[in-house]
């Protein structure tokens, strides 16, 4: 038999040819490798959410191998001594086993929980970025809606997961959730008994939450993440205005190799932060809370941070109950059902609201600096302040305790603050944005402050400004504002040499000082055509 020699060097080429012969991929593959992505630190916030989601899938799968969402009563017999012999549900027992009797189980549990908190935090911060830079505008309204949906799905997913261990804290949370469902007019009691299979807590709710937590919602989230990314890919990422950047191009790097490498490195760093937190910072120590018992609660029971704003709204709600014709709408209904409803619908409609308000139906691929849209920036500040007051009120008992403030005073401060502070924040943020705008225009017209004070023959002191372009007789320049950073310091113009590099000692020789350096405006400024299509 003749043995054929394998030419190793030709192997990659040969296999590539074989693949292409079957899949016909040379052209699409090349355009994929070459796809250009714009780069800016603020574009990485959504990635944090994506990477946390991947960590959640990995750690969650591990946890599911050991956890049993059963409400069957058992006597604990594991290695955590203080709870031995205590009656508890099988769910709580297996959650304890994950923490104490599975090798490395605790670090996985804590990583899962921290990753969930990070996931929600990254979504919120990413959403703020999208909002204040106007990235939600046409043609990206659909992706904005998908993003908002993912916030609420993540919220539900997180709450379901938080409820699974059946400890004292999560059981109390679940009981509040059942009260919230009960508060829905007309169908509340039917919804609640149907979901719980009877009266709270029943015997089946954990199994149902489990399938929601490990299958339904992750599947929907995964689908939406895919669509979200596919849309970013198809519609191409937005970019900041700048030299050479227009509404009809993308300036950046090709995806491979540099951009992809940076993404991969960033994933590893996000993963690292979650691993460090999971190992070093304790979270949700369920063994300290004990099993859920309907009669037990402790002071200072707070939900995970992303639920706190709804806890806060519930605490601040005045005792207003509507009773008529023998029927009731409990006060719980407004802050926990109506408010989230408004918080879903209003932001989803916002792209169209703004388009009408500003009479701008145009196609936008260039981002706006927050200062350039003072109204929207003000709205963002207003919404965030509203959210912050609610979140702080969700922990107002802790604040009251730590700062020795009356609890009732905290509630009243929250009620008043919720109404007064957001409009104030709107006003302040809007003024700041306008002020920053004005300063940009000032620098464009007069130049950069040099810090050099000149005394005129008549004794007057003036500061010397460095114009950014050839100036007229009065030292004024007529540069248009193009929606990107205006240099405001001399070293931004290259008037100062770059700092000598090195941490403790210089790793390079300082350049010899330049005697008379002519400061010239960056020539690229003329090419800017941004904002005009």
């Amino acid at each position, binding site marked *: 038999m003749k043995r054929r020699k394998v030419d190793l060097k030709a192997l990659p080429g040969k296999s590539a040819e074989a693949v292409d012969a079957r899949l016909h991929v040379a052209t699409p593959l090349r355009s994929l490798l070459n796809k250009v992505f714009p780069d800016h630190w603020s574009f990485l916030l959504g990635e944090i959410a994506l990477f946390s989601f991947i960590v959640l899938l990995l750690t969650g799968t591990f946890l599911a191998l050991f956890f049993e969402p059963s409400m069957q009563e058992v006597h604990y017999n594991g290695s955590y001594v203080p709870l031995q012999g205590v009656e508890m549900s099988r769910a709580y027992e297996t959650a304890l086993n994950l923490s104490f009797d599975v090798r490395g189980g605790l670090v996985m549990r804590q990583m899962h929980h921290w990753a969930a908190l990070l996931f929600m935090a990254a979504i919120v911060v990413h959403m703020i970025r999208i909002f204040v830079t106007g990235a939600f505008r046409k043609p990206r309204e659909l992706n904005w809606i998908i993003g908002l949906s993912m916030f609420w799905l993540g919220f539900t997913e997180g709450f379901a997961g938080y409820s699974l261990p059946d400890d004292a804290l999560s059981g109390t949370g679940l009981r*509040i959730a059942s*009260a919230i469902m009960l*508060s829905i007019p007309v169908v509340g009691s039917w919804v609640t008994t149907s979901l719980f299979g009877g009266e709270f807590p029943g015997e089946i709710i954990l199994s149902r939450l489990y399938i929601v937590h490990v299958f339904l919602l992750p599947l929907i989230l995964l689908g939406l993440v895919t669509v979200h990314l596919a849309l970013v890919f198809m519609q191409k990422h937005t970019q900041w205005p700048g030299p050479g950047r227009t509404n009809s191009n993308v300036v950046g790097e090709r995806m491979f190799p540099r951009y992809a490498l940076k993404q991969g490195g960033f994933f590893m760093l996000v993963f690292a932060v979650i691993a460090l937190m999971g190992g070093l910072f304790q979270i949700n120590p369920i063994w300290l809370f004990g099993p859920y018992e*309907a009669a037990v*609660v402790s002071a200072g*029971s707070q939900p995970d941070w992303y639920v706190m704003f709804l806890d806060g709204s519930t605490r601040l709600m005045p005792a207003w109950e509507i009773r008529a014709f023998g029927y009731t709408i409990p006060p719980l209904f407004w802050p926990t059902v109506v408010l989230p409803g408004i918080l879903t619908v209003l932001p989803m409609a916002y792209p169209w609201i703004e388009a009408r308000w500003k009479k701008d139906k145009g196609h936008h*691929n260039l981002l706006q600096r927050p200062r350039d849209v003072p109204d929207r920036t003000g709205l963002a500040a207003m919404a965030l302040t509203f959210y912050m007051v609610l979140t702080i009120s969700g922990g107002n008992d802790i604040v009251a305790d730590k700062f020795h403030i009356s609890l009732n005073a905290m509630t009243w401060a929250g009620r008043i603050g919720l109404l007064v502070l957001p409009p104030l924040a709107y006003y302040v943020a809007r003024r700041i944005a306008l002020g920053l705008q004005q300063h940009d225009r000032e620098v464009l017209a007069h130049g950069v402050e040099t810090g050099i004070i000149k005394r005129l023959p008549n004794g007057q002191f003036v500061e010397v400004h460095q114009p950014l372009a050839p100036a007229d007789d009065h030292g004024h320049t007529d540069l248009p504002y193009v929606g990107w950073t205006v240099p405001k310091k001399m070293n931004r113009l290259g008037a100062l040499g770059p700092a000598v590099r090195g941490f403790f000692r210089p790793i390079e020789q300082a350049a010899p000082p330049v005697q008379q350096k002519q400061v010239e405006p960056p020539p690229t400024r003329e090419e800017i055509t941004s904002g005009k299509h």
Partner: protein
Amino acid sequence: MSESNTQVVDLDDPNLTTFDIVREGARRDGIEIVHYEPQYPAGSKGEKRMVRIVSFFFLLTGLASTAFVVAYIWWPWEYEMGANASKLYTPILGLTLGLALIGVGLGILTWGKKLLPHEIAIQDRHDGPSDPVERKITGETLKFIGSELSVARRPALKLSLLGLLPLGAAAAAPLIGGLIKDPHHPDILFKTGFAGATKENPIKLVRDDYTPIRPEEVSTGGQITVFPGIPGGVSNKYADSPTLLIHLREGDAEALRANLYEMNQGSPWQSYVAYSKICTHAGCPASLYEQQTNRLLCPCHQSQFLITDNAKPIFGPATRSLPMLPITVDKDGHFAATGDYKVPVGPAFWEKS
């Protein structure tokens, strides 16, 4: 951008470098690489330094990963009471795994950001509406599909389509129907574990270990959580039944007797009163007892109830008084309930008037 370079590159030209071909390929995808420059000249000091840094990070990853595996296998991990090495198991795993990932992350980042050439590429966007001709053709195709079905032209077909609606109901029925649980038959939301108690057959109040309680066991101004003395009465099966039994000071008891609602008449026993522990707001146990002010505080949303006045809400979001349980002392000298709560326990809902 590609318009400015219309001359076709002969890809078979032997003088072409690989980069020339790459650039030509990018051009064919509507991408112009306008700037492509290594950060450090090949073989320069800076480049070598970056290579050293990348290698250092990857070495760090190797070491930390090894430490992770070693700790995972050999560090004592089984739980033991007290301060001991097993308590460090999780922190060590997190620390070594974190370091390993930081190493690989920073290594890759340094490689990508410092050792790969810096580039600026410009790609055309082709967004906005499609070409009018394309739009027209696709639109007409869709219209054609619609007209071929010709529902509008055949009214009988339209009508019969309505006949398919029950199919949707048939699909939904088994999915939703199996879940539906009637809250009113039996009337579970209006009853607690004390249902069935009568004056003749009272149900004992018990502690969480099912022991009954004598009046002298609750000190003046004190309170105790009690449950219905029935099988499983302490368990979560009767999550609406936990009750607070409070021994009022004599003055406070008199105040309560003066304030009693009509339906609560006769419910307290001497200076002892029993209120539902389940908050009427969201169902948390309203169990923080402020002895001096005679208030019960719910720690979840801080509703406060005045126990000398039918436990009516005096602060926070709750709107309804905590229901009062009619109690007595039975022939054994133990506390017992002579009936169920007069109003449904726990959070309000639509049908609760």
